[in-house]
């Protein structure tokens, strides 16, 4: 649902390691590495946001059409949910 508000799982902390934003879950010790666009979504989720708000933000920062952006953000949020990086509240 594009109107759902997504928020971070605050158990993750990260650091910029060369081109990637690498994160570790302080409960489990699990590492993940975020590419540029995933890192941008993570940064945007510093405040809880809807998918529509995330898309709007990325459309101003990246050269991408709205349909492709929406498709990418949907897939990314689903991956973040599976990795327990973020979830709709």
């Amino acid at each position: 649902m594009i109107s759902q508000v997504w928020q971070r799982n605050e158990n993750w902390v990260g650091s910029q390691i060369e081109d990637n934003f690498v994160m570790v879950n302080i409960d489990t010790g699990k590492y993940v590495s975020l590419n540029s666009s995933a890192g941008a979504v993570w940064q945007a989720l510093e405040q809880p946001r809807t998918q529509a708000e995330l898309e709007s933000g990325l459309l101003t920062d990246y050269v991408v059409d709205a349909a492709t952006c929406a498709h990418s953000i949907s897939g990314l949020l689903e991956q973040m949910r599976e990795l327990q990086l973020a979830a709709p509240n």
Partner: protein
Amino acid sequence: MNGAVTHRGFEVRRVSQLPQRGIITRRGRGEIYDDGFRFSWTNVATFDVQAARQISYLPRGGWRGTMPDTFFSTVTALAMAGIGMLPLHASAIELDGRAFLFAGKAGAGKSTLTAELLAKGARFIGDDLSVLAPPDGKMGFRVTRGRPLIRLHPATAALIDAALCEHAPEDARGKLLAQPRIRAADAAYPLAGIFLLGPGPAEVPPSEALRLLPSHLFRPRWLGAMPGHGQRRAWLLDLAGRVTVRRLAAVDGFDSVARRLRTDAAMAAMADING
């Protein structure tokens, strides 16, 4: 029960028996609990550590009347981890107010290089074990003393001015335990850089540092099983991202030319990092 002494903020007390505790898991010579661990050193003593800053030790048949070296290495490292510090298998020196670590496998020459750097004007923080305080506010990682004595071949021990120099017990290689007089004050020093002793290019990019640093934790298998390891991994990530990591050759301790070249390279690299 004898009177207690203090070690690194822990109350250390000799006991005649140890209580039953709820085990999370077993590791080699010991057990891990949710609030500490218990570690047995051969037939010398069993150490029982509680995160509430208490260490009890139960002497065994091989007790010689003094704390074995393992108390100042393994027991101290794991105890400090239990109170939120990061123990690394590395020697440490202080130069111009900042700390540098030298990590590497056993035999890579950490202690030898440390002794040679002391002869060049660096000040001793610790040998083999370094304990890092994690970032706090605007302060980055800080290095505190780990093992206070340095274990050296006699020829290398002759390089340094030592207050104490005696044969290392439990060392079949004839090494000496020395307490250098050129010591940094007992304080926490900002970490300036980490040198890994081993083959490979001098530059260690952050991604490689992140891959390599976990193996330089002190007793990594124990730490991996102790509570709080996720936080320790987060600190390693932070270390890789914010601290300069470089590589120095691991050299044969008897190759004096290679040793001198490595010492000169270390001094130059530290001067470069310190700006």
